[in-house]
């Protein structure tokens, strides 16, 4: 189709060891780390690592993130994330280009606060967000039976999607034509993803893994523009007026 061959975004998960810290004594940490690495040098060589400070912060043990990051790097590890840090630690981490793992960060409200205090931080954040969210993918040709399209973003299709075709997007899906194939929006679990199409004759529609097959879609409006979204773990199909 019309995607260029220079790059594309694919979804994927990768595994990284999470280093949970119980002590803020850098010397002790370094010693223990060297022992661990010596026990499995192949495993740890150039390995990404995420460090978890939640235990420390719960016990009010402060640690200097800059020193920790430099210690990890000296040991041949690549810190790729911080988890459970306090606002100051997270800010420090971002300045060192270590992203925040907000999935389990206990304080999600931190980010806007940080934004107000310091200009440098939002800049880094903006870069990270941009990298994660690719621009919407646009398809102008019909998607034929047997073709699969994956968008790590929103997906906009201007032509028909045939039965036996499969379109997937991490974000919203728009089909400005008839949809006869399978459509999966929010495939990485985005429950806010929505789905729009002009004529719903789909074999299957799914948002964040919650799906309906054509059997369940029998009563849905035909030959009319609809939107589909999730409410209370259920797909709501609504005619657009």
């Amino acid at each position, binding site marked *: 189709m019309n995607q260029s061959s220079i790059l594309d975004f694919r979804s994927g998960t990768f595994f990284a060891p999470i280093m949970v810290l119980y002590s803020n004594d850098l010397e002790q940490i370094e010693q223990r780390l060297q022992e661990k690495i010596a026990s499995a040098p192949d495993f740890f060589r150039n390995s990404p690592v995420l460090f978890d400070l939640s235990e420390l912060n719960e016990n009010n043990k402060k640690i200097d993130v800059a020193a920790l990051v430099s210690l990890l790097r000296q040991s041949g590890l690549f810190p790729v994330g911080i988890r459970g840090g306090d606002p100051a630690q997270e800010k420090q981490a971002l300045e060192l280009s270590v992203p925040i793992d907000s999935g389990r960060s206990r304080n999600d409200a931190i980010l806007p606060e940080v934004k107000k205090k310091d200009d440098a931080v939002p800049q880094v954040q903006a870069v990270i967000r941009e990298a994660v969210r690719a621009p919407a993918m646009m398809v102008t040709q*019909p998607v034929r*039976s047997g*073709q699969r399209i994956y968008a790590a973003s929103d997906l906009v299709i201007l032509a028909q999607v*045939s039965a036996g*075709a499969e379109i997937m997007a991490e974000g919203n899906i728009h089909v400005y034509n008839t949809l006869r194939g399978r459509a999966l929006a929010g495939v990485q679990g985005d429950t806010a993803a929505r789905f729009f199409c002009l004529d719903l004759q789909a074999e299957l529609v799914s948002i964040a893994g919650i799906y309906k097959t054509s059997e369940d879609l029998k009563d849905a409006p035909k030959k009319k523009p609809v939107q589909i979204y999730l409410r209370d773990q259920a797909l709501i199909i609504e005619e657009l007026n």
Partner: protein
Amino acid sequence: MARIIVVTSGKGGVGKTTTSAAIAMGLAKRGHKTAVIDFDVGLRNLDLIMGCERRVVYDFVNVINGEANLNQALIRDKNCNQLYILPASQTRDKDALNLEGVGRVLEELSRDFKYIVCDSPAGIEKGANLAMYYADDAFVVTNPEVSSVRDSDRMLGILASKSRRAELNMEPIKEYLLLTRYDPDRVESGEMLSLDDVQEILSLHLLGVIPESKAVLNASNSGIPVILDEKSDAGQAYADVVARYLGEKRPLRFIDSKKGFLRKLFGGK
């Protein structure tokens, strides 16, 4: 440079070889030097439909392997001296073909011919892929029933993504629909998909509708492309197809039920 046409469908038995023979003959009859190639290695049929099976000495695979040159393998048609047939090998299989070899043969033919018609085997495997890879135009042959339509749709996806034109980011293959074995009476009674039903799913440029016709089987058995049977409905429909492909405007024929017409006329049962 020749224009390379692939006649394809995905599904078998829908009329690819009949169509290849008919349109190749139709183009040649209009004075365009045309070659028709049988890509169905191992299940060669085109020579039968063209009535030249007794004159096959060398075949497509021989030419690809350098065991014969093109002029030795090409068979001049007995009805039209502008038409040449390159038969498939019956003793080999699709693995005897390769992309580079097919490309070489097509390039050599391109120097001399105006149109090259590639008769694709059924399926979406190697043989079908090689037949369509170098194409400029695709005639997608479809019967008015759901499985054929689905398979054609699949083939269209492959044309759009795996052809040379797609890979080189050139202007895409021009895709045309040819609806064959159309029986207006059965459409009327709801046993068959209508032209509109098919077009709703495929939305392609329609080149023509070929009615289900006894003339087709007769033509196959006697080895004379049906387009030469100018009195037959199928023959006329193919002549229309060729004319439309060459840019003429022709009204669609053979799509209305005769029974329906009579019923309307006499207010029948």
